[in-house]
């Protein structure tokens, strides 16, 4: 046992200095400026261009503060538990429905949106919000297959079918080079489409069949991935990924920019796929519905609406935007699906708790077996 000594006293001095050092950090920290006119967005990261935001801020003489989420469910869980103060959210269809049913949204005042007419007809009056009382569609994405185009050509594999990730004869050639989404709904939806069923199917027997299909293919997959596949594809670690069209676009651009010796491609499987439509909605807790309406209308102008497509390769719900979208993006069928594909694209809808729990049990089995 070492008795307390002078040296230990030095220790105590030092630790007090340690705390004092905290004060040194203070100048680095600026207190948030006093309120004024501030619009609070709860949004996906990089979903609205900086220049566009700056233009809006200048036009309305206000500031825009953004907080970010990377997943609808994160956002829903946070709001459900009582978080508040967000004027605008940008959720996907089923999340919009959930928010409406939980009475969390403020109705849209169409009078204040003179540019509403710019929206494409096919995105109006959606099932999740009949009559667009609460939501204004903004951007779309498709859950599809991204791939290393050079590898696929060399191996002679089809890239426009879910067979690529479900059929053993395809998988044999790409063992350990495939990732699929770590999402029960998305992966099982892909399997359901491949089996010729709707993603809104309610018959448990059909879901069981989807589960068996997934379990059969699983030994060839590298992992379930929701985000790392972007980098893995662009680097070349992975040759095929099940994921979102925006992400594949990103992987393709990254690979191009980095001068990788191969190209990334992406395509919507012919069997059909999941379509996501993200919309602007007003959260009940928002303090500035006036600014929120101004912002939505600003974003409905063609030039501003085009942003999201040029920035991240998202599909666009705005007809006036099309003229402002880069031709190589506007002409990409995996971003802007041709009319013939539209009937085969389905949106995800929420199931009732009992079926949800049953599907979750299947998913656990998929992950563990």
């Amino acid at each position: 046992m070492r008795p307390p000594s002078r040296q230990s006293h030095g220790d105590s001095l030092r630790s007090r200095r340690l705390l004092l050092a905290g004060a040194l950090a203070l100048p680095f920290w600026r207190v948030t400026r006093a309120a004024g006119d501030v619009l609070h967005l709860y949004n996906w990261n990089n979903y609205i261009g900086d220049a566009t935001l700056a233009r809006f801020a200048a036009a309305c003489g206000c500031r825009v503060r953004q907080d970010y989420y990377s997943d609808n469910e994160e956002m829903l869980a946070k709001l459900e538990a009582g978080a508040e103060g967000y004027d605008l959210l940008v959720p996907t269809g089923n999340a919009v429905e959930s928010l409406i049913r939980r009475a969390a949204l403020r109705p849209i005042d169409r009078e204040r949106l003179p540019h509403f007419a710019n929206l494409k007809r096919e995105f109006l009056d959606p099932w999740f919000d009949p009559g667009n009382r609460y939501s204004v569609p903004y951007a779309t994405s498709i859950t599809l297959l991204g791939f290393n185009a050079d590898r696929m050509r060399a191996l002679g594999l089809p890239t426009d079918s879910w067979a690529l990730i479900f059929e053993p004869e395809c998988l044999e050639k790409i063992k350990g080079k495939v990732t699929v989404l770590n999402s029960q709904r998305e992966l099982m939806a892909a399997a359901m489409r491949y089996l010729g069923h709707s993603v809104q199917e309610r018959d448990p027997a059909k879901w069981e069949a989807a589960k068996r299909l997934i379990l059969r293919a699983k030994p060839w997959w590298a992992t379930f991935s929701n985000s790392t596949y972007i980098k893995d594809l662009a680097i070349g670690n992975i040759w095929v990924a099940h994921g979102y069209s925006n992400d594949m676009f990103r992987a393709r651009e990254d690979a191009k920019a980095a001068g990788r010796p191969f190209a990334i491609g992406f395509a919507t499987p012919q069997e059909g796929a999941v379509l996501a439509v993200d919309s602007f909605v007003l959260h009940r807790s928002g303090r500035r519905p006036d600014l929120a309406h101004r912002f939505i209308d600003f974003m409905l102008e063609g030039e501003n609406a085009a942003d999201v497509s040029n920035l991240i390769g998202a599909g666009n719900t705005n007809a006036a935007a099309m003229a402002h979208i880069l031709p190589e993006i506007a002409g990409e069928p995996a971003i802007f699906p041709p009319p013939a594909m539209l009937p085969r694209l389905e949106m995800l809808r929420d199931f009732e708790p009992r079926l949800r729990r049953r599907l979750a049990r299947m998913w656990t089995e998929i992950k563990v077996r």
Partner: protein
Amino acid sequence: MKRPNIWLWTASLAVYAFLYIPLAVVVIFSFNDSMLNAEWVGFTLDWYAKLLGDGEMLRAAANSLLIALLSSSIATALGAMAGIAMHRWRFRWLPFLVLTPVAMPEILLGVSLLLFFRQVLDLTLGFFSILVAHITFSIGFVAVIVRARLAGMDESIFEAARDLGATPWASFRRVTLPLILPALVAGFLMSFTLSIDDFVITFFVAGVGVTTLPLQIYSMIKVAVTPEVNAVSTLLMALTLTLILTASRFAPDVLRGRQ
């Protein structure tokens, strides 16, 4: 005293290497002239330039640092009290109260704190709610380490101090505090890293417009994490190193070393 032998040094260096090799990747790629960072392309300071123009990211980093320093200081104080209480008075229930927050999955802790703040206290989320949450999950770590430091220590020291008529405060200052100091420093550093790195709990309790670095970085996961994130991580480490080294420099006693 015998000098540590060569085997000990070799083994320790290997462990340091394990800790630092991934970190070297982080730092090196912050200077890499490639968005993708698959391979070395060329030296650039662009990512640092971009970072310095990124007000959101800098504000998030500053928030993180401030919250980490405050929460770990408070958690160290409270955790030390809990550790001492567990050691000296051996309350049966205290270890459970202290250990349960460590044992509770962080999502549950985050959701429960958010529910509590909003629906019971009706508190506006922000800086304070993040601070409280971080203290909550750090206390246990400090308490456990302080208790481990005290374990097996000779009670007679404390009794002797009391017998000599020292007030409880004086005996704490002169006896207990010097004894547990290394544990306090270690506990502070652990709380600091827990706080500065926490995403899940912070995600739930963060309020409008108050963001931390992990929140900012996680939201980029879908945008592709650019080397700007490597740059901010590198800077944060450099700043932490500077802060702590400056702190120990101000205390020249330390330099005298051990007798």
